[in-house]
């Protein structure tokens, strides 16, 4: 691993460093590292589903949870709690909680609480990588506001339902083609933040990239102008692990040509 990274450093100026902005370079390295080693990497998830009734860990628990320490996650009069031999502790939503070497997270969503459980990473997983960076796929365009406001329940990148608001239609020129892509404002739970997001399919979907599509965030340039850097397109978490549900492709957001930019896809590594 180390030698590969060092090699990347040495060759970067010749085929990477000259083109890839440092921010994108760091973002990619950071993200791949997080996927590979984080205790809450989507690769490490062994359970993802609604909290309906008690969720039991340990030898009496569901199949995927039998290697975990004995514990019960439940929702009661004192809120969400995790009961272990050591007693009960409250469980915050949208944050990780340790259970021995395991981790769990309860995500709030309009449909109720979703639980994701992460086992200790058992093997090092290689990130599939990205298409070579292309400055031609950094698109500037305009976001036309919608005729009327609209809210829509949809799955976010992490397979958790969110209530997204229609932001409008991004209009730009991609590889010589005029494109119109629907954008939604997707909230980031627990903050004042949201991301103007486009979920799109193209000619690479189902081949080099994930079949249902990829997410890309629009960055404001001032006024109605936005930048859509397709090199920063990312897979939904279901691309890494089938335990996460996949967002449905957004109607009208299919490009009829190949966008050779952003994150690649290889069938599951887990």
């Amino acid at each position, binding site marked *: 691993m*180390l030698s590969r*990274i060092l090699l*990347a*450093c040495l060759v*970067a*100026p010749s085929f990477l*460093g000259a083109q890839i902005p*440092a*921010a994108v370079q*760091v*973002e990619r*390295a*950071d*993200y*791949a*590292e*997080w*996927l590979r*080693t*984080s205790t809450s990497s989507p690769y490490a998830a062994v359970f993802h589903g609604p909290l309906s009734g008690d969720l039991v860990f340990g030898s009496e628990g569901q199949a995927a949870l039998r290697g975990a320490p004995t514990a019960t996650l439940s*929702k009661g*009069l*004192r*809120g*969400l709690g*995790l009961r272990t031999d050591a*007693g009960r*502790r*409250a*469980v*915050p*939503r*949208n*944050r990780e*909680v340790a259970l021995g070497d395991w981790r769990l997270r309860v*995500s*709030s969503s309009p449909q109720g609480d979703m639980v994701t459980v992460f086992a200790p990473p058992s093997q090092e997983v290689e990130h599939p990588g990205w298409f070579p960076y292309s400055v031609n796929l950094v698109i500037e365009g305009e976001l036309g506001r919608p005729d009327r*406001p*609209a*809210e829509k329940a949809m799955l*976010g990148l*992490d397979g*958790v339902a969110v209530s997204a*608001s*229609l*932001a409008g239609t991004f209009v730009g020129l991609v590889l010589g083609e005029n494109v119109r892509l629907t954008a939604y*404002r997707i909230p*980031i*739970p*627990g*903050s*004042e*933040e*949201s*991301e*103007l997001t486009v979920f799109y399919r193209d000619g690479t979907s189902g081949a080099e990239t994930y079949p249902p599509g990829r997410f890309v*965030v*629009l*960055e*404001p340039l001032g006024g109605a102008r936005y930048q859509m850097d397709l090199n920063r397109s990312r897979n939904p978490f279901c691309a890494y692990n089938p335990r996460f549900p996949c967002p449905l492709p957004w109607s009208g957001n299919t490009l009829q040509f190949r966008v050779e930019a952003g994150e690649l896809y290889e069938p599951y590594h887990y």
Partner: protein
Amino acid sequence: MLALVLVLGCATAGTDAGQEGIDGHWRAQLDLAGGPLRFHMDLNGEGGASGTLCNGAICDALSAVRSLPGDSVLLEIGDYDAVIRAHVSADSLVGFYRNVGNRGPRTIPFRATRGSWPIEAPPASITGSWDAIFTPDDSPSPRVLELRDTERGLEGTVISNTGDSGLFWGGASDGQFVMSHFDGSFVYMLTGGLDGDTLRGVFHAGATSQRPFVAVRSTGAPHLKAPTELVTVDATTAFEWNFPDVDGDFVSNLDERFQGKVVIVEIFGTWCPTCHDSAPTMVKLYDMFHDRGLEIVGLSYEVTGDPEIDGLLVRRFGEKFGIEYPLLLAGVNDDDSPHETQPQLSGPIAFPTAIFIDPSGQVRRVHSGFYGPALGEVHEELEQELIQFTEELLREAGR
């Protein structure tokens, strides 16, 4: 992690990495899509390996400052699982702020040079209180902007129905103002300027999120919901609680010490700056009226849910303010926890929220949020109002 270090090294390869220490005062910025978010840092890397992030008068301590190979430094913000990683040269730091959310890590470019940002005194035309409407698409929502001219430049805050967003600091020039709040976790910036009598601008959150706003001078008419209107309470039964204190002993409304007393239940969190503002007022009320039959109990909603960690934070909070009334571990600070543990309350629960209960156990008033000392006269008025109301309840009870 190693890969990131090396990539950062790659990104700065070829520069003259200086060997100078990092001790000193730095003017720093995060490069958001909407412009630079300014703040200050004080670092003491060689002696104590410590430091602070400062927005105007408010500073937050870094949890650690570490040197890395390749003339880089790692500034850890442990409370938020966030770091600033930067390459060090003689008089500059260049790198990235990074935090980890549920959807993976996020990075924002970071830069710093030695020294201080210039103090830019705001014109009187923009200071004061403004009634703002934030207009993100289809859900406009009210805010009050409090902008003040201080010796550090422009300071203020953004108040919503459920509380404020902490201290913002910045300055103004050429009719435009910029204020920011960066505490290691929240990345907020307010930019704007006067357009006639109207203040127009943008509230920036994180690297790319932007919400335009329009504001007019506050007239004194209510723009936000009154602090007593936000939360409603089921008053058909006595208000109940039963939670462990930091030693694990449960404290309940049925305990002898609360019977026949006027009780204030303060919902708070040690992570909440406004709760730090309100604690001295609660202590003042307790000192003034405890002998006449006032009891106060604090219900904390903390970050981790781990009694050991949360207990330590709550114990420190109590020691900091000299609190003698019980502080209980009631839950965690997500949107739903206070409602789940206090089902008698409905509506958005602000931090802090003070619930005033008469000797019969009935809720007489719920006060959401708090105006801290930074708001001057408004704070003093509120404190007097709370003192008077408490005295009224005690008088009613013949105490």
